[in-house]
Protein backbone atom coordinates (compact mmCIF):
# COMPACT_ATOMS: atom_id res chain seq x y z
CA UNK A 1 0.00 0.00 0.00
CA UNK A 2 2.70 2.44 0.97
CA UNK A 3 4.65 1.32 -2.07
CA UNK A 4 1.78 2.47 -4.23
CA UNK A 5 1.84 5.80 -2.46
CA UNK A 6 5.56 6.04 -2.99
CA UNK A 7 5.33 5.18 -6.67
CA UNK A 8 2.44 7.60 -7.04
CA UNK A 9 4.43 10.42 -5.50
CA UNK A 10 7.35 9.73 -7.84
CA UNK A 11 4.99 9.71 -10.79
CA UNK A 12 3.35 12.91 -9.59
CA UNK A 13 6.77 14.56 -9.25
CA UNK A 14 7.53 13.86 -12.89
CA UNK A 15 4.13 15.13 -13.91
CA UNK A 16 4.81 18.30 -12.00
CA UNK A 17 8.13 18.91 -13.71
CA UNK A 18 6.50 18.14 -17.05
CA UNK A 19 3.52 20.39 -16.55
CA UNK A 20 4.63 23.35 -14.48
CA UNK A 21 6.11 25.16 -17.46
CA UNK A 22 2.73 24.87 -19.12
CA UNK A 23 1.00 26.30 -16.10
CA UNK A 24 3.17 29.39 -16.05
CA UNK A 25 2.90 30.04 -19.79
CA UNK A 26 -0.82 29.58 -19.61
CA UNK A 27 -1.13 32.00 -16.74
CA UNK A 28 1.26 34.51 -18.24
CA UNK A 29 0.03 34.79 -21.78
CA UNK A 30 -3.37 33.18 -21.38
CA UNK A 31 -2.17 30.85 -24.08
CA UNK A 32 -3.27 27.24 -24.37
CA UNK A 33 -0.25 25.29 -25.53
CA UNK A 34 -1.33 21.73 -26.16
CA UNK A 35 2.05 21.12 -27.77
CA UNK A 36 3.81 21.32 -24.42
CA UNK A 37 4.12 17.53 -24.41
CA UNK A 38 6.03 17.70 -27.65
CA UNK A 39 8.89 19.42 -25.82
CA UNK A 40 8.84 16.64 -23.27
CA UNK A 41 9.01 14.06 -26.00
CA UNK A 42 11.83 15.98 -27.60
CA UNK A 43 13.77 15.91 -24.33
CA UNK A 44 13.18 12.19 -24.09
CA UNK A 45 14.55 11.53 -27.55
CA UNK A 46 17.51 13.80 -26.94
CA UNK A 47 18.36 11.69 -23.91
CA UNK A 48 18.04 8.47 -25.86
CA UNK A 49 20.21 9.76 -28.67
CA UNK A 50 22.79 11.29 -26.36
CA UNK A 51 23.19 8.03 -24.52
CA UNK A 52 23.08 5.68 -27.48
CA UNK A 53 24.96 7.69 -30.11
CA UNK A 54 27.25 9.86 -28.05
CA UNK A 55 27.66 7.46 -25.19
CA UNK A 56 26.85 10.12 -22.62
CA UNK A 57 26.07 8.77 -19.15
CA UNK A 58 22.49 9.17 -17.94
CA UNK A 59 23.27 11.94 -15.49
CA UNK A 60 24.88 14.02 -18.23
CA UNK A 61 22.08 13.32 -20.65
CA UNK A 62 19.58 14.97 -18.29
CA UNK A 63 20.97 18.51 -18.50
CA UNK A 64 21.44 18.00 -22.22
CA UNK A 65 17.74 17.21 -22.52
CA UNK A 66 16.92 20.33 -20.53
CA UNK A 67 19.14 22.59 -22.59
CA UNK A 68 18.16 21.32 -26.00
CA UNK A 69 14.44 21.46 -25.20
CA UNK A 70 14.85 24.95 -23.75
CA UNK A 71 16.67 26.10 -26.87
CA UNK A 72 13.92 24.66 -29.02
CA UNK A 73 11.38 26.48 -26.87
CA UNK A 74 13.24 29.75 -27.22
CA UNK A 75 13.40 29.48 -30.99
CA UNK A 76 9.85 28.33 -31.51
CA UNK A 77 8.45 30.95 -29.15
CA UNK A 78 10.11 33.62 -31.19
CA UNK A 79 9.22 32.24 -34.59
CA UNK A 80 5.76 30.75 -34.38
CA UNK A 81 4.20 31.18 -30.95
CA UNK A 82 4.41 34.92 -30.62
CA UNK A 83 1.91 35.75 -33.38
CA UNK A 84 -0.58 33.44 -31.67
CA UNK A 85 -0.95 35.26 -28.37
CA UNK A 86 -3.49 37.71 -29.71
CA UNK A 87 -5.64 35.06 -31.35
CA UNK A 88 -8.66 33.31 -29.90
CA UNK A 89 -8.36 30.31 -27.61
CA UNK A 90 -9.79 28.18 -30.35
CA UNK A 91 -7.10 29.23 -32.80
CA UNK A 92 -4.45 28.61 -30.18
CA UNK A 93 -5.81 25.15 -29.56
CA UNK A 94 -5.92 24.31 -33.26
CA UNK A 95 -2.45 25.70 -33.78
CA UNK A 96 -0.92 23.72 -30.98
CA UNK A 97 -2.76 20.54 -31.95
CA UNK A 98 -1.18 21.03 -35.35
CA UNK A 99 2.23 21.20 -33.71
CA UNK A 100 1.49 18.03 -31.76
CA UNK A 101 0.49 16.19 -34.91
CA UNK A 102 3.67 17.32 -36.61
CA UNK A 103 5.74 16.25 -33.63
CA UNK A 104 4.11 12.84 -33.47
CA UNK A 105 4.54 12.14 -37.16
CA UNK A 106 8.00 13.68 -37.20
CA UNK A 107 9.19 11.51 -34.32
CA UNK A 108 7.75 8.48 -36.04
CA UNK A 109 9.62 9.34 -39.23
CA UNK A 110 12.94 10.06 -37.56
CA UNK A 111 12.99 7.59 -34.70
CA UNK A 112 10.54 4.87 -35.67
CA UNK A 113 7.37 3.97 -33.88
CA UNK A 114 8.84 1.56 -31.32
CA UNK A 115 9.24 2.17 -27.60
CA UNK A 116 12.60 3.61 -26.56
CA UNK A 117 14.59 2.49 -23.56
CA UNK A 118 17.50 3.89 -21.63
CA UNK A 119 20.09 2.08 -19.60
CA UNK A 120 20.03 3.43 -16.07
CA UNK A 121 23.28 3.40 -14.14
CA UNK A 122 23.59 0.49 -11.75
CA UNK A 123 23.23 2.59 -8.62
CA UNK A 124 19.83 3.78 -9.78
CA UNK A 125 18.30 0.41 -10.60
CA UNK A 126 16.66 -2.06 -8.32
CA UNK A 127 14.78 -1.68 -5.07
CA UNK A 128 15.67 -1.84 -1.45
CA UNK A 129 13.52 -2.42 1.57
CA UNK A 130 12.94 0.36 4.01
CA UNK A 131 10.79 -0.54 7.01
CA UNK A 132 8.84 -2.98 4.89
CA UNK A 133 8.26 -0.60 1.98
CA UNK A 134 9.79 -1.53 -1.33
CA UNK A 135 11.65 1.60 -2.40
CA UNK A 136 12.74 1.82 -6.01
CA UNK A 137 16.10 3.58 -6.18
CA UNK A 138 15.24 5.37 -9.37
CA UNK A 139 11.93 6.58 -7.97
CA UNK A 140 13.66 7.82 -4.86
CA UNK A 141 16.11 9.66 -7.11
CA UNK A 142 13.22 11.25 -8.96
CA UNK A 143 11.49 12.33 -5.78
CA UNK A 144 14.65 13.92 -4.44
CA UNK A 145 15.58 15.63 -7.68
CA UNK A 146 12.12 16.89 -8.57
CA UNK A 147 11.38 17.81 -4.98
CA UNK A 148 14.51 19.95 -4.95
CA UNK A 149 13.49 21.50 -8.24
CA UNK A 150 10.02 22.28 -6.91
CA UNK A 151 11.51 23.94 -3.84
CA UNK A 152 13.92 25.93 -5.96
CA UNK A 153 11.13 27.08 -8.20
CA UNK A 154 8.86 27.99 -5.33
CA UNK A 155 11.72 30.00 -3.89
CA UNK A 156 12.52 31.61 -7.21
CA UNK A 157 8.91 32.43 -7.85
CA UNK A 158 8.23 34.03 -4.48
CA UNK A 159 11.59 35.42 -3.41
CA UNK A 160 13.54 36.66 -6.39
CA UNK A 161 13.14 39.80 -8.46
CA UNK A 162 12.51 37.69 -11.53
CA UNK A 163 9.79 35.83 -9.65
CA UNK A 164 8.04 38.93 -8.41
CA UNK A 165 8.03 40.41 -11.88
CA UNK A 166 6.69 37.14 -13.20
CA UNK A 167 3.93 37.11 -10.62
CA UNK A 168 3.00 40.66 -11.46
CA UNK A 169 2.85 39.79 -15.14
CA UNK A 170 0.73 36.71 -14.51
CA UNK A 171 -1.70 38.73 -12.45
CA UNK A 172 -2.17 41.41 -15.05
CA UNK A 173 0.10 41.68 -18.05
CA UNK A 174 -1.15 45.13 -19.03
CA UNK A 175 -0.48 46.65 -15.65
CA UNK A 176 2.91 44.96 -15.56
CA UNK A 177 3.78 46.47 -18.92
CA UNK A 178 2.71 49.82 -17.58
CA UNK A 179 5.12 49.37 -14.69
CA UNK A 180 7.95 48.89 -17.15
CA UNK A 181 8.31 45.16 -16.78
CA UNK A 182 9.54 43.68 -20.07
CA UNK A 183 6.73 41.18 -20.34
CA UNK A 184 7.73 39.84 -23.74
CA UNK A 185 11.26 38.99 -22.72
CA UNK A 186 10.04 37.61 -19.43
CA UNK A 187 7.70 35.40 -21.32
CA UNK A 188 10.29 34.19 -23.78
CA UNK A 189 12.58 33.21 -20.90
CA UNK A 190 9.80 31.53 -18.99
CA UNK A 191 8.66 29.69 -22.07
CA UNK A 192 12.16 28.43 -22.71
CA UNK A 193 12.60 27.43 -19.08
CA UNK A 194 9.24 25.66 -19.04
CA UNK A 195 10.10 23.83 -22.25
CA UNK A 196 13.42 22.84 -20.76
CA UNK A 197 11.71 21.46 -17.68
CA UNK A 198 9.35 19.54 -19.92
CA UNK A 199 12.36 18.14 -21.74
CA UNK A 200 13.93 17.14 -18.44
CA UNK A 201 10.65 15.57 -17.35
CA UNK A 202 10.49 13.67 -20.59
CA UNK A 203 14.00 12.37 -20.03
CA UNK A 204 13.29 11.34 -16.46
CA UNK A 205 10.01 9.80 -17.49
CA UNK A 206 11.32 7.37 -20.10
CA UNK A 207 11.75 4.72 -17.44
CA UNK A 208 8.32 5.26 -15.88
CA UNK A 209 6.03 6.43 -18.66
CA UNK A 210 7.71 5.02 -21.72
CA UNK A 211 8.66 6.97 -24.82
CA UNK A 212 7.25 6.57 -28.28
CA UNK A 213 5.96 9.02 -30.89
CA UNK A 214 2.47 9.18 -29.38
CA UNK A 215 3.88 10.39 -26.05
CA UNK A 216 2.87 13.99 -26.60
CA UNK A 217 -0.72 13.04 -27.39
CA UNK A 218 -1.05 10.37 -24.74
CA UNK A 219 0.06 12.57 -21.88
CA UNK A 220 -1.38 15.84 -23.11
CA UNK A 221 -4.49 15.25 -21.07
CA UNK A 222 -2.40 14.65 -17.94
CA UNK A 223 -0.62 17.98 -18.24
CA UNK A 224 -3.86 19.73 -18.85
CA UNK A 225 -5.42 18.14 -15.80
CA UNK A 226 -2.53 19.33 -13.69
CA UNK A 227 -2.90 22.86 -14.99
CA UNK A 228 -6.67 23.14 -14.97
CA UNK A 229 -6.99 21.57 -11.57
CA UNK A 230 -3.97 23.27 -10.06
CA UNK A 231 -4.65 26.71 -11.45
CA UNK A 232 -2.10 28.94 -13.11
CA UNK A 233 -1.21 31.51 -10.53
CA UNK A 234 1.03 29.57 -8.17
CA UNK A 235 3.72 26.90 -8.14
CA UNK A 236 2.12 25.00 -5.29
CA UNK A 237 -1.25 24.57 -7.02
CA UNK A 238 0.06 22.52 -9.92
CA UNK A 239 2.41 20.74 -7.54
CA UNK A 240 -0.36 19.37 -5.35
CA UNK A 241 -2.53 18.70 -8.38
CA UNK A 242 0.29 16.64 -9.89
CA UNK A 243 0.76 14.70 -6.64
CA UNK A 244 -2.95 13.98 -6.46
CA UNK A 245 -3.05 12.89 -10.07
CA UNK A 246 0.06 10.75 -9.77
CA UNK A 247 -1.13 8.90 -6.68
CA UNK A 248 -4.67 8.50 -7.98
CA UNK A 249 -3.46 7.20 -11.30
CA UNK A 250 -0.97 4.71 -9.89
CA UNK A 251 -3.42 3.53 -7.24
CA UNK A 252 -6.24 3.26 -9.76
CA UNK A 253 -4.21 1.30 -12.26
CA UNK A 254 -2.89 -0.97 -9.54
CA UNK A 255 -6.10 -1.61 -7.63
CA UNK A 256 -8.73 -1.59 -10.40
CA UNK A 257 -6.79 -2.11 -13.63
CA UNK A 258 -9.87 -2.88 -15.72
CA UNK A 259 -11.10 0.69 -15.39
CA UNK A 260 -7.90 2.03 -16.88
CA UNK A 261 -7.69 5.79 -16.98
CA UNK A 262 -11.39 6.11 -16.34
CA UNK A 263 -10.92 7.20 -12.73
CA UNK A 264 -8.60 10.01 -13.68
CA UNK A 265 -10.85 11.48 -16.30
CA UNK A 266 -13.89 11.21 -14.08
CA UNK A 267 -11.98 12.87 -11.26
CA UNK A 268 -10.97 15.71 -13.54
CA UNK A 269 -14.49 16.31 -14.78
CA UNK A 270 -15.87 16.32 -11.25
CA UNK A 271 -13.17 18.70 -10.04
CA UNK A 272 -13.69 21.05 -12.93
CA UNK A 273 -17.41 21.21 -12.34
CA UNK A 274 -17.13 21.83 -8.65
CA UNK A 275 -14.12 24.18 -8.88
CA UNK A 276 -14.12 25.70 -12.35
CA UNK A 277 -11.20 27.97 -11.56
CA UNK A 278 -8.98 25.19 -10.32
CA UNK A 279 -8.74 23.34 -7.07
CA UNK A 280 -6.13 25.54 -5.51
CA UNK A 281 -6.85 28.79 -7.28
CA UNK A 282 -7.43 31.90 -5.26
CA UNK A 283 -11.07 32.87 -5.13
CA UNK A 284 -12.08 35.28 -7.84
CA UNK A 285 -15.23 37.32 -8.13
Amino acid at each position, binding site marked *: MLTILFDGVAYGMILFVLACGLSVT*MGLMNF*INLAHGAFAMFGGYVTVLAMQRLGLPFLWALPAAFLVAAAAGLVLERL*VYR*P*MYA*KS*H*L*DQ*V*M*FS*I*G*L*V*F*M*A*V*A*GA*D*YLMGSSQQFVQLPAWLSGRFDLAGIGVGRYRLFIILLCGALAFAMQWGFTRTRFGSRLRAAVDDARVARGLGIPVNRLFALTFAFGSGLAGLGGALGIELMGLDPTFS*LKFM*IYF*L*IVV*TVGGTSTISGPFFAAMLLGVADVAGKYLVP*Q*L*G*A*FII*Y*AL*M*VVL*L*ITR*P*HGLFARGRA
Partner: protein
Amino acid sequence: MSEGSIEARVQRSLYAARRWHPAEIMFWLLAVAAFFLLPRQLLILNEIAILGLFAVSLDLILGYAGIVSLGHAAFFGFGAYAAGLFAKHASADPLAGLAVGMGAAGLLGLLTSPLILRGSDLTRLMVTLGVALILGELANSLGWLTGGADGLQGIMMGSVLGLFEFDIFGKVAYLYSLAVLFVLFVLARRIVGSPFGLSLRAIRDNPLRASASGVPLHWRLVAVYTLAAAYAGAAGALLAQTTQFVSLDVLAFHRSADLMLVLIIGGAGYLYGGLIGAVAFKLLQDVIASFTPQYWMFWIGLFLVLFVLGGRELIHGGIKAVVGRVARLGRRSPT
Protein backbone atom coordinates in the same frame (compact mmCIF):
# COMPACT_ATOMS: atom_id res chain seq x y z
CA MET B 1 -40.17 58.00 -44.84
CA SER B 2 -43.34 56.46 -43.43
CA GLU B 3 -43.61 53.85 -40.72
CA GLY B 4 -45.06 51.35 -43.15
CA SER B 5 -42.03 51.37 -45.37
CA ILE B 6 -39.72 50.76 -42.43
CA GLU B 7 -41.80 47.76 -41.52
CA ALA B 8 -41.46 46.43 -45.04
CA ARG B 9 -37.72 46.96 -44.92
CA VAL B 10 -37.43 45.18 -41.59
CA GLN B 11 -39.33 42.27 -43.01
CA ARG B 12 -37.13 42.24 -46.10
CA SER B 13 -33.97 42.30 -44.00
CA LEU B 14 -35.15 39.43 -41.84
CA TYR B 15 -36.20 37.50 -44.92
CA ALA B 16 -32.90 38.08 -46.69
CA ALA B 17 -31.08 36.13 -43.99
CA ARG B 18 -33.05 32.96 -44.64
CA ARG B 19 -33.58 33.24 -48.39
CA TRP B 20 -32.20 30.38 -50.48
CA HIS B 21 -29.18 31.69 -52.26
CA PRO B 22 -28.55 30.44 -55.84
CA ALA B 23 -25.13 29.20 -54.73
CA GLU B 24 -26.82 27.00 -52.16
CA ILE B 25 -29.07 25.37 -54.71
CA MET B 26 -26.05 24.84 -56.90
CA PHE B 27 -24.22 23.20 -54.01
CA TRP B 28 -26.91 20.59 -53.45
CA LEU B 29 -27.33 19.94 -57.16
CA LEU B 30 -23.60 19.28 -57.33
CA ALA B 31 -23.89 16.88 -54.40
CA VAL B 32 -26.51 14.90 -56.32
CA ALA B 33 -24.61 15.18 -59.58
CA ALA B 34 -21.56 13.69 -57.86
CA PHE B 35 -23.51 10.44 -57.59
CA PHE B 36 -23.64 10.16 -61.36
CA LEU B 37 -20.32 11.77 -62.20
CA LEU B 38 -18.13 9.94 -59.70
CA PRO B 39 -19.51 6.39 -59.53
CA ARG B 40 -16.20 5.03 -58.26
CA GLN B 41 -15.86 7.51 -55.46
CA LEU B 42 -19.16 6.79 -53.74
CA LEU B 43 -17.58 5.37 -50.62
CA ILE B 44 -15.53 8.49 -50.07
CA LEU B 45 -18.49 10.69 -50.96
CA ASN B 46 -20.43 8.87 -48.28
CA GLU B 47 -17.66 9.63 -45.80
CA ILE B 48 -17.76 13.26 -46.83
CA ALA B 49 -21.50 13.46 -46.29
CA ILE B 50 -21.13 11.94 -42.81
CA LEU B 51 -18.24 14.22 -41.90
CA GLY B 52 -20.23 17.16 -43.21
CA LEU B 53 -23.17 16.32 -40.99
CA PHE B 54 -20.83 15.93 -38.03
CA ALA B 55 -19.34 19.35 -38.79
CA VAL B 56 -22.78 20.94 -39.06
CA SER B 57 -23.39 19.61 -35.58
CA LEU B 58 -20.26 21.28 -34.24
CA ASP B 59 -21.15 24.47 -36.09
CA LEU B 60 -24.44 24.63 -34.21
CA ILE B 61 -22.67 24.90 -30.87
CA LEU B 62 -19.40 26.53 -31.90
CA GLY B 63 -20.39 28.77 -34.78
CA TYR B 64 -23.76 29.82 -33.42
CA ALA B 65 -23.61 29.53 -29.64
CA GLY B 66 -19.86 30.06 -29.28
CA ILE B 67 -19.16 26.94 -27.23
CA VAL B 68 -15.78 25.36 -27.86
CA SER B 69 -15.52 21.60 -27.63
CA LEU B 70 -12.60 19.23 -27.97
CA GLY B 71 -14.72 16.17 -27.37
CA HIS B 72 -17.51 16.26 -29.89
CA ALA B 73 -16.58 12.73 -30.94
CA ALA B 74 -18.27 11.60 -27.72
CA PHE B 75 -21.66 12.08 -29.32
CA PHE B 76 -20.59 10.79 -32.69
CA GLY B 77 -19.24 7.61 -31.13
CA PHE B 78 -22.18 7.20 -28.79
CA GLY B 79 -24.59 7.47 -31.70
CA ALA B 80 -22.51 5.01 -33.70
CA TYR B 81 -22.45 2.41 -30.93
CA ALA B 82 -26.14 2.92 -30.17
CA ALA B 83 -27.12 2.46 -33.81
CA GLY B 84 -24.75 -0.49 -34.22
CA LEU B 85 -26.03 -2.27 -31.13
CA PHE B 86 -29.61 -1.55 -32.08
CA ALA B 87 -29.06 -3.08 -35.52
CA LYS B 88 -27.38 -6.10 -33.99
CA HIS B 89 -29.80 -6.84 -31.22
CA ALA B 90 -33.11 -5.19 -32.00
CA SER B 91 -33.92 -4.26 -35.57
CA ALA B 92 -32.06 -3.95 -38.83
CA ASP B 93 -34.17 -1.07 -40.05
CA PRO B 94 -31.85 1.87 -40.87
CA LEU B 95 -34.25 4.69 -40.10
CA ALA B 96 -35.21 3.24 -36.74
CA GLY B 97 -31.50 2.81 -36.00
CA LEU B 98 -30.86 6.39 -37.04
CA ALA B 99 -33.55 7.58 -34.65
CA VAL B 100 -32.06 5.49 -31.86
CA GLY B 101 -28.57 6.86 -32.52
CA MET B 102 -29.84 10.42 -32.50
CA GLY B 103 -31.95 9.86 -29.41
CA ALA B 104 -29.15 8.22 -27.47
CA ALA B 105 -26.62 10.90 -28.36
CA GLY B 106 -29.15 13.63 -27.70
CA LEU B 107 -29.83 12.22 -24.27
CA LEU B 108 -26.11 12.11 -23.55
CA GLY B 109 -25.89 15.72 -24.69
CA LEU B 110 -28.71 16.69 -22.39
CA LEU B 111 -27.10 14.93 -19.44
CA THR B 112 -23.66 16.41 -20.02
CA SER B 113 -24.85 19.90 -20.91
CA PRO B 114 -24.57 21.21 -17.33
CA LEU B 115 -20.81 20.70 -17.70
CA ILE B 116 -20.49 23.36 -20.37
CA LEU B 117 -22.66 26.01 -18.77
CA ARG B 118 -20.00 27.38 -16.48
CA GLY B 119 -16.36 28.21 -16.70
CA SER B 120 -14.02 29.59 -19.31
CA ASP B 121 -13.18 28.32 -22.78
CA LEU B 122 -10.32 26.40 -21.25
CA THR B 123 -12.56 24.59 -18.77
CA ARG B 124 -14.98 23.76 -21.54
CA LEU B 125 -12.24 22.37 -23.74
CA MET B 126 -11.04 20.19 -20.89
CA VAL B 127 -14.44 19.00 -19.76
CA THR B 128 -15.61 18.08 -23.25
CA LEU B 129 -12.31 16.33 -23.87
CA GLY B 130 -12.71 14.53 -20.56
CA VAL B 131 -16.19 13.28 -21.42
CA ALA B 132 -14.97 11.88 -24.73
CA LEU B 133 -12.01 10.19 -23.05
CA ILE B 134 -14.27 8.65 -20.42
CA LEU B 135 -16.53 7.22 -23.10
CA GLY B 136 -13.50 5.91 -24.95
CA GLU B 137 -12.30 4.14 -21.81
CA LEU B 138 -15.76 2.75 -21.18
CA ALA B 139 -16.13 1.44 -24.72
CA ASN B 140 -12.72 -0.16 -24.38
CA SER B 141 -13.41 -1.87 -21.09
CA LEU B 142 -17.00 -2.97 -21.80
CA GLY B 143 -15.73 -5.48 -24.35
CA TRP B 144 -18.68 -7.87 -23.92
CA LEU B 145 -20.97 -5.14 -25.26
CA THR B 146 -18.89 -3.14 -27.67
CA GLY B 147 -16.37 -5.69 -28.85
CA GLY B 148 -13.63 -3.61 -27.22
CA ALA B 149 -10.54 -3.10 -29.34
CA ASP B 150 -11.80 -5.50 -32.02
CA GLY B 151 -14.73 -3.23 -32.71
CA LEU B 152 -18.41 -4.00 -32.98
CA GLN B 153 -18.72 -6.60 -35.71
CA GLY B 154 -21.52 -8.50 -37.34
CA ILE B 155 -23.87 -5.60 -37.95
CA MET B 156 -26.39 -6.55 -40.62
CA MET B 157 -28.47 -3.74 -42.06
CA GLY B 158 -31.89 -4.05 -43.61
CA SER B 159 -32.90 -2.05 -46.64
CA VAL B 160 -33.73 1.64 -46.47
CA LEU B 161 -37.53 2.06 -46.31
CA GLY B 162 -37.71 -1.63 -47.19
CA LEU B 163 -36.77 -0.76 -50.77
CA PHE B 164 -33.07 -0.09 -51.17
CA GLU B 165 -30.49 -2.70 -50.17
CA PHE B 166 -27.04 -1.46 -49.24
CA ASP B 167 -24.50 -2.46 -51.91
CA ILE B 168 -20.72 -2.78 -51.87
CA PHE B 169 -20.18 0.21 -54.18
CA GLY B 170 -21.81 2.59 -51.73
CA LYS B 171 -24.59 3.70 -54.09
CA VAL B 172 -27.38 3.38 -51.56
CA ALA B 173 -25.02 4.37 -48.77
CA TYR B 174 -24.20 7.72 -50.38
CA LEU B 175 -27.76 8.53 -51.34
CA TYR B 176 -29.00 7.54 -47.89
CA SER B 177 -26.37 9.65 -46.11
CA LEU B 178 -26.91 12.54 -48.48
CA ALA B 179 -30.67 12.43 -47.96
CA VAL B 180 -30.30 12.37 -44.18
CA LEU B 181 -27.73 15.17 -44.39
CA PHE B 182 -30.02 17.26 -46.55
CA VAL B 183 -33.07 16.83 -44.32
CA LEU B 184 -31.13 17.58 -41.14
CA PHE B 185 -29.33 20.47 -42.83
CA VAL B 186 -32.56 22.10 -43.92
CA LEU B 187 -33.88 21.67 -40.41
CA ALA B 188 -30.73 23.24 -38.95
CA ARG B 189 -30.97 26.07 -41.43
CA ARG B 190 -34.50 26.70 -40.33
CA ILE B 191 -33.54 26.59 -36.66
CA VAL B 192 -30.68 29.05 -36.96
CA GLY B 193 -33.03 31.46 -38.73
CA SER B 194 -35.66 31.23 -35.98
CA PRO B 195 -36.03 33.40 -32.88
CA PHE B 196 -34.25 30.60 -31.03
CA GLY B 197 -31.35 30.73 -33.48
CA LEU B 198 -31.13 34.49 -33.13
CA SER B 199 -30.89 34.12 -29.37
CA LEU B 200 -27.97 31.70 -29.79
CA ARG B 201 -26.08 34.29 -31.78
CA ALA B 202 -26.88 36.80 -29.07
CA ILE B 203 -25.32 34.51 -26.47
CA ARG B 204 -22.25 33.99 -28.62
CA ASP B 205 -21.78 37.70 -29.30
CA ASN B 206 -22.32 38.93 -25.77
CA PRO B 207 -23.72 36.81 -22.94
CA LEU B 208 -24.03 39.81 -20.64
CA ARG B 209 -26.23 41.72 -23.04
CA ALA B 210 -28.11 38.56 -23.97
CA SER B 211 -29.22 38.03 -20.40
CA ALA B 212 -30.00 41.75 -20.10
CA SER B 213 -32.24 41.27 -23.12
CA GLY B 214 -34.22 38.54 -21.45
CA VAL B 215 -32.47 35.50 -22.95
CA PRO B 216 -32.27 32.61 -20.47
CA LEU B 217 -28.70 31.58 -21.28
CA HIS B 218 -28.65 28.23 -19.57
CA TRP B 219 -31.76 26.80 -21.11
CA ARG B 220 -30.83 27.92 -24.58
CA LEU B 221 -27.38 26.38 -24.28
CA VAL B 222 -28.80 23.15 -22.93
CA ALA B 223 -31.22 23.04 -25.86
CA VAL B 224 -28.62 23.67 -28.55
CA TYR B 225 -26.10 21.34 -26.96
CA THR B 226 -28.68 18.56 -26.92
CA LEU B 227 -29.65 19.29 -30.49
CA ALA B 228 -26.04 19.30 -31.67
CA ALA B 229 -25.39 16.05 -29.80
CA ALA B 230 -28.32 14.45 -31.60
CA TYR B 231 -26.91 15.64 -34.92
CA ALA B 232 -23.51 14.20 -34.11
CA GLY B 233 -25.27 10.99 -33.10
CA ALA B 234 -26.98 10.91 -36.48
CA ALA B 235 -23.60 11.21 -38.21
CA GLY B 236 -22.22 8.39 -36.05
CA ALA B 237 -25.26 6.24 -36.77
CA LEU B 238 -24.82 6.78 -40.50
CA LEU B 239 -21.21 5.66 -40.25
CA ALA B 240 -22.14 2.54 -38.29
CA GLN B 241 -24.92 1.66 -40.70
CA THR B 242 -23.15 2.32 -43.97
CA THR B 243 -19.89 0.62 -42.98
CA GLN B 244 -21.60 -2.00 -40.81
CA PHE B 245 -18.82 -1.69 -38.30
CA VAL B 246 -18.00 0.41 -35.25
CA SER B 247 -14.48 0.67 -33.85
CA LEU B 248 -13.06 2.49 -30.83
CA ASP B 249 -11.77 5.00 -33.34
CA VAL B 250 -15.19 6.69 -33.41
CA LEU B 251 -14.47 8.10 -29.97
CA ALA B 252 -10.81 8.96 -30.55
CA PHE B 253 -9.36 12.35 -29.79
CA HIS B 254 -8.11 12.86 -33.32
CA ARG B 255 -11.70 12.68 -34.54
CA SER B 256 -12.67 15.68 -32.43
CA ALA B 257 -9.52 17.51 -33.48
CA ASP B 258 -10.05 16.74 -37.17
CA LEU B 259 -13.59 17.99 -36.83
CA MET B 260 -12.37 21.31 -35.52
CA LEU B 261 -10.04 21.51 -38.48
CA VAL B 262 -12.91 20.79 -40.87
CA LEU B 263 -14.98 23.58 -39.41
CA ILE B 264 -12.09 25.99 -39.27
CA ILE B 265 -11.22 25.33 -42.91
CA GLY B 266 -14.77 25.97 -44.03
CA GLY B 267 -15.49 28.74 -41.56
CA ALA B 268 -17.90 28.59 -38.63
CA GLY B 269 -21.26 30.25 -38.23
CA TYR B 270 -23.00 29.77 -41.58
CA LEU B 271 -23.60 25.98 -41.68
CA TYR B 272 -22.09 25.51 -45.12
CA GLY B 273 -18.64 25.90 -43.63
CA GLY B 274 -18.88 22.39 -42.22
CA LEU B 275 -19.82 20.94 -45.59
CA ILE B 276 -17.19 22.82 -47.55
CA GLY B 277 -14.64 21.97 -44.88
CA ALA B 278 -15.59 18.29 -45.08
CA VAL B 279 -15.02 18.23 -48.83
CA ALA B 280 -11.71 20.07 -48.51
CA PHE B 281 -10.54 17.91 -45.62
CA LYS B 282 -11.26 14.62 -47.38
CA LEU B 283 -9.63 15.82 -50.57
CA LEU B 284 -6.62 16.93 -48.62
CA GLN B 285 -6.46 13.60 -46.82
CA ASP B 286 -6.75 11.78 -50.12
CA VAL B 287 -4.01 13.78 -51.79
CA ILE B 288 -1.66 13.43 -48.84
CA ALA B 289 -2.40 9.75 -48.48
CA SER B 290 -1.54 9.18 -52.12
CA PHE B 291 2.08 10.22 -51.66
CA THR B 292 2.84 9.62 -47.99
CA PRO B 293 0.21 7.33 -46.51
CA GLN B 294 2.15 6.92 -43.27
CA TYR B 295 2.82 10.49 -42.36
CA TRP B 296 -0.35 12.25 -43.29
CA MET B 297 -0.66 13.36 -39.68
CA PHE B 298 2.41 15.52 -40.19
CA TRP B 299 0.92 17.30 -43.18
CA ILE B 300 -2.42 17.78 -41.50
CA GLY B 301 -0.53 19.31 -38.59
CA LEU B 302 1.50 21.54 -40.84
CA PHE B 303 -1.65 22.59 -42.62
CA LEU B 304 -3.31 23.49 -39.30
CA VAL B 305 -0.34 25.57 -38.19
CA LEU B 306 -0.04 27.47 -41.46
CA PHE B 307 -3.77 27.88 -41.63
CA VAL B 308 -4.05 29.51 -38.25
CA LEU B 309 -0.92 31.58 -38.80
CA GLY B 310 -2.42 33.33 -41.79
CA GLY B 311 -3.62 30.92 -44.46
CA ARG B 312 -7.24 31.23 -43.42
CA GLU B 313 -7.65 34.72 -44.81
CA LEU B 314 -6.35 33.52 -48.15
CA ILE B 315 -8.68 30.54 -48.37
CA HIS B 316 -11.76 32.33 -47.15
CA GLY B 317 -11.11 35.22 -49.49
CA GLY B 318 -11.09 32.69 -52.30
CA ILE B 319 -14.35 31.07 -51.23
CA LYS B 320 -16.08 34.44 -50.89
CA ALA B 321 -14.94 35.45 -54.36
CA VAL B 322 -16.37 32.26 -55.87
CA VAL B 323 -19.66 32.56 -53.98
CA GLY B 324 -19.94 36.19 -54.97
CA ARG B 325 -19.48 35.32 -58.62
CA VAL B 326 -22.13 32.60 -58.48
CA ALA B 327 -24.47 35.00 -56.70
CA ARG B 328 -24.07 37.57 -59.43
CA LEU B 329 -24.87 34.91 -62.03
CA GLY B 330 -27.97 34.00 -60.03
CA ARG B 331 -29.15 37.58 -59.75
CA ARG B 332 -28.99 38.09 -63.46
CA SER B 333 -31.51 35.33 -64.04
CA PRO B 334 -35.17 36.40 -63.58
CA THR B 335 -36.58 35.82 -60.12
